[in-house]
């Protein structure tokens, strides 16, 4: 199975978008060695080192008091938004620059999974903290990630965990923890939601310090029966309980398959587990994997970051106006990092294939094509540059009908072959 076609599919799945040089190198190394290199990068990540996360300092609203004026509040809020924008642009830059592409894509996957939006959390500092947690635990056991996330300040604010007390439990976090983050629907009851909410009681968030704190008197210490087990659960032991359920093994596997293999090809029945990297290894080497070629619709962020890698464009090197257009373009396509539309995360697959998102994609493609620092002068060169296996007659005709290299490149970026890979 180690032919070039398969290895290119692998690279398209495991990276945001492989460069021609990466395709060549993987072809030489072979499939198995490429899987190893992607999953266990040995070399230091020079790209990541060159793109250190921004130092955001403290949350600008932390200095506000009840005596602060309306103007001071507005200014603080404005600074908060600016911080969020900086963090988003940094992350896009990192996605393009990182050598450990799979690790970076995995962080984005988990961000979509624990889908938390800065629009409600209103703190880039806390969002940055959550990304660090996803980065730290995202490769390994779900249990480690989930137990860290249930005490993550941004997630607590997002799902009203700080309003959840023994006197009056708030079910929001408990429900989504089971439905969306660990088990999926049908694997718990309403009684489990109520009991789970009690297990999660007691956590508050200090925005100024950027920390979540456990307040014993707000916690319900009574034993709860959740999923048939009775114990004096707290947030961490509740999360650990969920991760032990058989349903978690297929739930996480299915989620990874849909994002790293195909949303159109069902997850293989034997794909199960709770640790991301071993699961991805199983997915990439599964007999069903090669058949996912041409069955994955690139998410907007994946599409844009991949195109920028291939075209030698760095968000940080774009001018202010172009950076603004980049974010506006992602917004119009429906996917801006740190701003998932709901706790259910972003849609997938055919959802991105609408006239609405196509318009936005075409505009952004034009911008990226104009900013490209590499060029391809003919149609075959374009296929190589963009790691496309080949153009259909339809697309070749469309590309031939363009006027000039920039327009041809923009057209290639929105072609069905590039968008659906």
């Amino acid at each position: 199975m180690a032919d070039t076609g398969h290895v290119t599919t692998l690279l398209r799945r495991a990276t945001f978008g492989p460069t021609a040089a990466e395709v060549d190198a993987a072809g030489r190394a072979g499939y198995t060695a490429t899987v190893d290199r992607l999953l266990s990068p040995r070399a230091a990540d020079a790209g990541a080192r060159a793109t250190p996360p921004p130092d955001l300092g403290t949350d600008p609203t932390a200095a506000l008091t009840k005596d602060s004026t309306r103007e001071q509040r507005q200014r603080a809020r404005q600074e908060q938004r600016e911080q969020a924008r900086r963090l988003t642009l940094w992350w896009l830059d990192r996605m393009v620059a990182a050598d450990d592409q799979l690790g970076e894509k995995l962080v984005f996957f988990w961000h979509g999974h624990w889908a938390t939006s800065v629009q409600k959390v209103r703190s880039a500092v806390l969002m940055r903290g959550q990304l660090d947690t996803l980065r730290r635990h995202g490769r390994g056991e779900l249990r480690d990630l989930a137990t860290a996330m249930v005490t993550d300040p941004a997630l607590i604010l997002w799902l009203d965990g700080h309003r959840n007390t023994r006197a009056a439990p708030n079910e929001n976090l408990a429900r989504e923890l089971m439905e969306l983050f660990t088990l999926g629907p049908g694997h718990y009851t309403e009684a489990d939601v109520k009991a789970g909410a009690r297990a999660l009681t007691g956590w508050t968030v200090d925005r100024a310090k950027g920390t979540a704190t456990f307040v014993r008197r707000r916690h319900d210490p009574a034993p709860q029966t959740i999923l048939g087990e009775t114990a004096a659960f707290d947030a961490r032991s509740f999360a650990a309980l969920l991760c032990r359920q058989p349903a978690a093994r297929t739930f996480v596997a299915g989620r990874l398959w849909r994002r790293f293999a195909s949303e159109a090809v069902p997850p293989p029945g034997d794909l199960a587990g709770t640790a991301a990297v071993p699961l991805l290894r199983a997915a990439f080497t599964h007999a069903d994997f090669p058949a996912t070629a041409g069955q994955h619709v690139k998410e907007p962020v994946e599409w844009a970051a991949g195109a920028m890698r291939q075209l030698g464009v760095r968000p940080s090197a774009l001018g202010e106006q172009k950076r603004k257009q980049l974010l506006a373009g992602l917004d119009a396509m429906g996917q801006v990092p740190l701003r998932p539309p709901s706790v259910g995360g972003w849609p997938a697959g055919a959802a991105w294939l609408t006239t609405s998102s196509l318009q936005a994609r075409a505009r952004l493609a034009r911008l990226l094509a104009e900013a490209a620092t590499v060029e391809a002068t003919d149609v075959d060169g374009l296929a190589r540059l963009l790691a496309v296996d080949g153009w259909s007659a339809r697309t070749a005709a469309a590309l031939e009908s363009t006027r000039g290299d920039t327009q041809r490149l923009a057209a290639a970026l929105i072609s069905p072959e590039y968008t659906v890979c």
Partner: protein
Amino acid sequence: MDTLTRRRFLLASGVTGAAALVAGAGAYTLKDILATAGDRPADARTLVLVTLYGGNDGLNTVIPYADPAYHDARPDLAYGAAEVLRVDGELGLNPALAGLHGLYGAGRLAIVRGAGYPKPNRSHFQSMDIWQTARPDRPGTSGWLGRWLDANGADPRLAVSFEPALPVLLAGERGAGAAVPVTRQLAREALADPVLAAFGQPQEGEPPLRARASACFADLLAVDALVAGAREAAAADEDDHEGATATGGATSPLAAQLDLVAQCVEAGVATRVFSVSLGGFDTHADEKQAQSILLGQVDKALTAFAGRMDRTEAGRKVVVAVYSEFGRRVRANASDGTDHGTASDVFLLGAGVHGGLFGARPSLTDLDDGDLKYTTDFRDVYATLLERVLGTDPAQVLGPWPGRLEVALDTTA
């Protein structure tokens, strides 16, 4: 395991919606929605479906202000008799709904109380799926208006969404409605029409999703003309998206979406169903103010739309239906909010709607695990809309379903 199913309301189409889109790829292009002007039966009516994502608190929308149980259950959240906009001696509308209150007084707003379904599901994603697929008993594979579309030739121009992604309710088994953006993004600024047209040519033997990507180009050329006229009305600034919604729904202002609907209706396009939405109703905390702001947006947008529709004959044939995936728990939580509940109200309005109260008011004391017991199956509402607005036998969409609302929706009165 089936995460896609639960999220389908966010998607352009779901698991099977994708298959439906693919089946139609190439065969059902949009051509030009505006060019369909006049291409509809003279007596054809239009349905505008407004989805409120997140679970709107029905008890603080249509308020049983005279019921002591209401005040007991949510003392800090409750509206008093002096605050509500009175409907009768028992019920009043939320103070933010002044415009709708006026329409109610004019006999143009029907309020269907206690709308829900058996064995209520309290998950946003699943309950919205149930409402949108109209299949409470088993996982849905298509939206109810998607099936209506199937039964009417599966032409995507017949069912249009002004949301960023196509809601599952418009995805059928064979075809799907069209998602038309409320933005200024025009592909034509980036690429010439012949290039777009070339991309829109079907390619034999292509993977289904790629065929769908190609079909988008053909659709786009058709939609472009429609959008061009309305884009100024709906300029979206990327920094203006305050108020994140954790549970989905459009972020374009409802008013902008309805403006676009109004333009299409006035142009006499072939479209029979429009889907618009507003998100943010998941008020687990600090509900009173948040809900009031949202209801104010709904009120302003719907009242303006109703007024505009009144002025044309085509507009007077429009019926608007407003629903949410569930109401909220009767008892408040300690965060000055409410958790996920069950049955709630559906609003119907339009020139032909003979207003009033329909369906029995659910008891606030005889509860199902803390939640209201539904009194009207939401499929009664759908069957009524299918039969009296869309002129379709409801059985084609819902299977045998005898229930109907008592409401009259004629336009001749």
